[in-house]
């Protein structure tokens, strides 16, 4: 039974470039660049100094609050600098730069086997929090926060997202094929923490080997089933995934916990298992390096903080006509102007496109074909939203649901006149946010100055 959701598009999945490439463990990097903000929430606060010696797994920046995560040293060595560096977000962020001493030695007390059965739920959550685990699907939301829903939002279903709907990306696919055990053990821990009996692992039909591998891994495990899903982008969006498996609709503006669900990426689940069973912080992750712009697409196990430039080298370097570098998939990954950026916790894919793949066509006036309305998985009207943004009718922009847009890109993808719909929508969201921030500032300054 293959569930699905409303709307969606069918881009070429381009996974054959890398879906048979076994994971290659990269050598220990000589330098790592660790941004203090690799997650949703408050940035971490640096607790080391330049020149300080650190071991692998030491905390270099502590969590900046509850909705935050610590950053760890991913090699042993010396703190070479603490300064802003270019990151995949397009902005320069404060980074802790560590030069490796070549020893790659663990910090004391870490990387030691734990007796899971004797740990309480609170202790398990503590290990997850201290390990700095965030959502590895790309959104990078602190996992311990997701696993601590408020009392009035009971959870009865945990879903692992093995969908990987973005074209080109194959890191989750290879992990499910090569390392299924950790994923399932992690899911058991998640279900125990959330006190729920049902776990689903959602995988799209275009990954038959991964489906088989996970089905074998969950044989005999109570309460966990593998759900095969129809191949359609963006099946991996959490609202779409929840609907396809459970038929529950997450309320607009709401969260999965509002319908009793928690969704985690398969990689996050494996990282949870490593943190709880081996007291290992999140130091490395699988990244797909692919596209027609690299010589030899690969899936690598890379340290957080490794330079993207080095990943490209492992993939055989750039092709002659490489022209676009994307951190993520082609539908939602931000394009980069430089490869001198670090791999962070949410980096799942490095995609390089050739010159001849970068022309998306000339923008023409809307012909009201309604293909964008047909494909929008959130049932919005993208062309109308774009026109309203163009004419700056901000009240209508909000009313037509611009903040419900998940920016999946289906509308721009399918538009025959190549309108830059997502770009207009992003601009609309940013403008509305700026306007309401300005108004709030005006309100608070009014309160400070009493009328004379």
């Amino acid at each position: 039974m293959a569930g699905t959701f409303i709307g969606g598009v069918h881009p070429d999945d381009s996974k054959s470039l890398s879906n048979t490439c076994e994971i290659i463990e990269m050598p220990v990097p000589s330098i790592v660049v660790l941004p203090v903000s690799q997650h949703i929430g408050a940035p971490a606060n640096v607790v080391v100094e330049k020149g300080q010696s650190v071991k692998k797994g030491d905390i270099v920046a502590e969590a900046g609050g509850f909705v935050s995560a610590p950053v760890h040293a991913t090699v042993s060595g010396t703190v070479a600098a603490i300064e802003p560096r270019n990151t995949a977000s397009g902005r320069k962020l404060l980074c802790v730069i560590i030069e490796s001493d070549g020893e790659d030695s663990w910090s004391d007390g870490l990387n030691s086997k734990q007796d899971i059965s004797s740990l309480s739920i609170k202790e398990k959550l503590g290990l997850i929090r201290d390990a700095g685990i965030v959502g590895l699907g790309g959104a990078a939301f602190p996992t311990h926060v997701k696993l601590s829903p408020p009392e009035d939002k009971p959870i009865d279903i945990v879903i692992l997202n093995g969908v990987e709907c973005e074209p080109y990306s194959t890191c989750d696919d290879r992990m499910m094929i090569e390392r299924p055990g950790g994923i399932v053990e992690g899911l058991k821990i998640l279900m125990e923490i959330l006190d729920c009996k049902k776990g689903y692992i959602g995988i799209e039909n275009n990954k038959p080997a991964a489906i088989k591998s996970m089905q074998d891994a969950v044989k005999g495990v109570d309460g966990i089933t593998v759900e095969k899903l129809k191949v359609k982008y963006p099946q991996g969006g959490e609202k779409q995934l929840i609907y396809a498996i459970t038929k529950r609709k997450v309320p607009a503006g709401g969260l999965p916990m509002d319908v009793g669900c928690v969704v985690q990426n398969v990689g996050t689940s494996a990282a949870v298992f490593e943190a709880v069973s081996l007291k290992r912080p999140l130091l490395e992750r699988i990244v797909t390096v692919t596209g027609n712009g690299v010589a030899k697409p690969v899936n690598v196990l890379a340290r957080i903080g490794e330079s993207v430039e080095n990943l490209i080298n492992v993939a055989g370097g750039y092709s002659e006509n490489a022209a676009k570098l994307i951190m993520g998939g082609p539908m939602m990954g931000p394009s980069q102007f430089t490869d001198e950026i670090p791999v962070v916790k949410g980096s799942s894919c490095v995609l390089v496109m050739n010159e001849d793949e970068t022309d998306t066509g000339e923008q023409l006036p809307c012909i009201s074909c309604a293909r964008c309305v047909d494909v929008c998985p959130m049932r919005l009207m993208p062309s109308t939203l774009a026109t309203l943004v163009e004419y700056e009718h901000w009240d209508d922009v909000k009313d037509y649901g611009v903040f419900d847009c998940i920016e999946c890109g289906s509308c721009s993808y399918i538009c025959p006149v190549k309108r830059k719909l997502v770009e207009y929508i992003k601009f609309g969201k940013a403008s509305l946010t700026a306007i309401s921030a300005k108004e709030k500032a005006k309100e608070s300054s009014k309160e400070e100055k009493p009328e004379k």
Partner: protein
Amino acid sequence: MSKMFKLSVTPHIRDNTDVQKIMYSVILALLPAAAGAVYFFGLRALWLIVLSIISCAATEALIGKMLGKPLTIFDGSAVITGILLAFNLPVGVPWWIPVVGSIFGIAVGKMTFGGLGYNPVNPAILGRIFLLISWPIQMTTWHKPNGFTGLDAETVATPLAVLKQNSRIILNRDSSTIEAFNSATSKIAELSDSYMDLFIGNVSGCIGETSVLLLLIGASFLMYKHYIGWRIPFSFVATVGIFTWIFGGYEGYFTGPWLFHIISGGLIIGAFFMATDMVTSPITFRGRIIFGIGCGIITSVIRLWGGYPEGVSFSILLMNITVPIIDRYTRPRVFGKVGK
């Protein structure tokens, strides 16, 4: 210093369908009916189609040039307008009818508003209605389908016109003679023999609208490609069927010849090729159904009680004008929205 890369906003890939692909697919879908037009009505039909296409394209190119816009005729939309306008003409019209109709439809219906995407009404429909009310005699003079033999000297009425005239006689039986009444009933009975002809297209009418079979072949191709949806044609045709079934019979309610109404006149070409014109139809799901139903009601009202035997063109034009209001009030419910 590392390589510098191109930047753009997501998504970085696109489906390879563009306007041209859609338009040329529509032209392909109209070819069976065009072949039928020539088969049933002769080379004169081909001449009308060609004249119409050339006039539409030339008007768009010329006006575009005057306005300083780049050449747009190769996107295929002017060609489609030309073909559809020609399909809506009786075979006997003089050569200047398609020319004038094309010029009016493109210039007033499309270019004054800014070209493709900006027009509020279907240019082919606008051109056709302009011709109908300006030259009613030429636009309502039909011939039998004679194929390549050429046009007969005598003109005939379309099946819909026959039904309408004779239904009137029957309904006003008190003011008709017995002979007129009997002749009317037998003429209507004859129409039932012609269902196969109506379906294939071997009847009098406008050159492109007669063959339901050939039009449906083209329309299924477009539906398979998802270039036209099912909502507008289905709700349009179903509404005409239901309405004429209830009100269209002369033996009381629920006795109307609904199948006859569905396969006669311009309903199939109107519902599948003209009401579905993307620019002038609603973009919301419920909106498209309302649009189809509205077209169906107006068509049926005109056919049964209006002055003309056929109402498809008027219904589409009138519903085109309501599209912005329809879209505003039929917004789809955002996924997960509770309440309004």
